């Protein structure tokens, strides 16, 4: 496939590994903050290709993993309401809420349908005009503009039965939270798809303020290895900057149309991240002028207080403090078929990828 096969070229991979081994004279810890990178690093076995003095750490880049139990509880409460259809991305179904999950509610008769985009959810709203459709807005700067575009289409077409429950988040404040917490890293492998929207400039404050290298990176083996090489060179020269490796998709300023869509529909707000708690200005709430589409207004009172399994260490894994194999539940009780924590659910979750590619 074009733009894929060329970036999996074995000769160039060997060459980059030689360059990395030659340059890596110290100890390095780099964090990837995109679930797509976590999955690609495991899938291609990149960690095992690297010398032992370069360690890759997963961060909070899997959108369903950082979504709090309370959000799932709200969706479950909506799904139990008369006349409501939940139209959702599939990976939300199996995330445990406090005492149930959307998958369980579906098995008990709730009308929960899997869609691939907000536009598909809007189509359901048009064809089921007597019902209320709730679309969970999950994800970072990559999915938020799509949700915004969907809401604006609902406005144009007068779909008054379409609602969004937003848990959209923006990535840079979470990266700053990691640095402020003191997690020891020497640089960030920055999220390539998020940066197509935000532009590389959204990350440059991390290099400037916290003196950490940021390399915006693509998702093929050559992309990731090249980014690691760039970060090693930055650390060696003590010159942290924000660089674009993924130049075939990312610019400094990003996608202005998508940014305008986000700004039109959403405003920044404090948001809960699993593992972190509340982070200022890291969430995207629906603006007052579009509040009639905000499903938060229809949540029934008395949604149970969220609770998580105390033995689950998803939170510490998302902050880069622990790895999945340090969890007492991992692969014993918590498996993809029976996930205890969100990190075992998604294809992009650190526990899921670790289980899939380490346990065979």
């Amino acid at each position: 496939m074009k733009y894929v096969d060329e970036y999996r070229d074995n000769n160039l991979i060997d060459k980059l590994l030689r360059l990395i081994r030659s340059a890596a004279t110290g100890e390095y810890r780099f964090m990837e903050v995109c679930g797509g990178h976590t999955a690609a690093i495991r899938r291609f076995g990149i960690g095992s290709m690297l010398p032992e003095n370069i360690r890759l750490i997963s961060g909070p880049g899997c959108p369903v993993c950082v979504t709090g139990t309370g959000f799932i509880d709200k969706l479950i409460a909506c799904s139990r309401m008369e006349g409501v259809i939940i139209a959702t991305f599939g990976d939300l179904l199996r995330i445990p809420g406090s005492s149930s999950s959307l998958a369980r509610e579906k098995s008990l008769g709730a009308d929960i349908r899997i869609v691939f985009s907000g536009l598909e959810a809007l189509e359901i709203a048009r064809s089921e005009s007597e019902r209320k459709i709730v679309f969970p807005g999950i994800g970072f700067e990559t999915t938020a503009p799509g949700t915004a575009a969907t809401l604006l289409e609902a406005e144009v077409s007068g779909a008054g039965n379409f609602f969004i429950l937003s848990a959209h988040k923006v990535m840079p404040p979470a990266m700053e939270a990691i640095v402020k917490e003191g997690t020891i890293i020497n640089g960030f492998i920055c999220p390539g798809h998020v940066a197509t929207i935000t532009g590389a400039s959204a990350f440059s404050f991390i290099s400037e303020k916290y003196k950490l290298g940021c390399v915006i990176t693509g998702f093929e083996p050559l992309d990731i290895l090249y980014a690691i090489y760039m970060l090693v060179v930055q650390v060696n020269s003590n010159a942290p900057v924000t660089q674009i490796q993924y130049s075939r998709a990312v610019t400094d300023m990003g996608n202005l149309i998508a940014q305008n869509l986000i700004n039109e529909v959403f405003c920044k707000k404090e948001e809960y991240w699993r593992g972190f708690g509340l982070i200022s200005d890291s969430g995207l709430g629906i603006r007052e002028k579009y509040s009639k589409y905000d499903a938060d207004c229809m949540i029934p009172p008395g949604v149970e207080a969220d609770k998580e399994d105390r033995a689950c260490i998803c939170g510490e894994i998302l902050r880069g403090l622990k790895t999945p194999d340090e969890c007492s539940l991992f692969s014993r009780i918590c498996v993809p078929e029976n996930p205890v924590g969100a990190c075992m659910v998604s294809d992009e979750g650190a526990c899921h990828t670790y289980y899939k590619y380490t346990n065979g």
Partner: protein
Amino acid sequence: MVIEINGKTAKVSVGGTLFSAGLHMIEDVVVGDYVLLHAGFALQKISEEDATATLKILNEMKTSGSK
């Protein structure tokens, strides 16, 4: 790769599988363009020029002195 465009949506082939993609975030898309597809929307067009340039840099990197 974009196969067909109908107003604000397109049919996009990913390795032969067809997906529907909203074109709300990108302009001047034509059939044959390569786009980044994410959650039902095209996020960005892929720059052939930059894709080639990255590979050229990698090809020209010198590994002398390394094992």
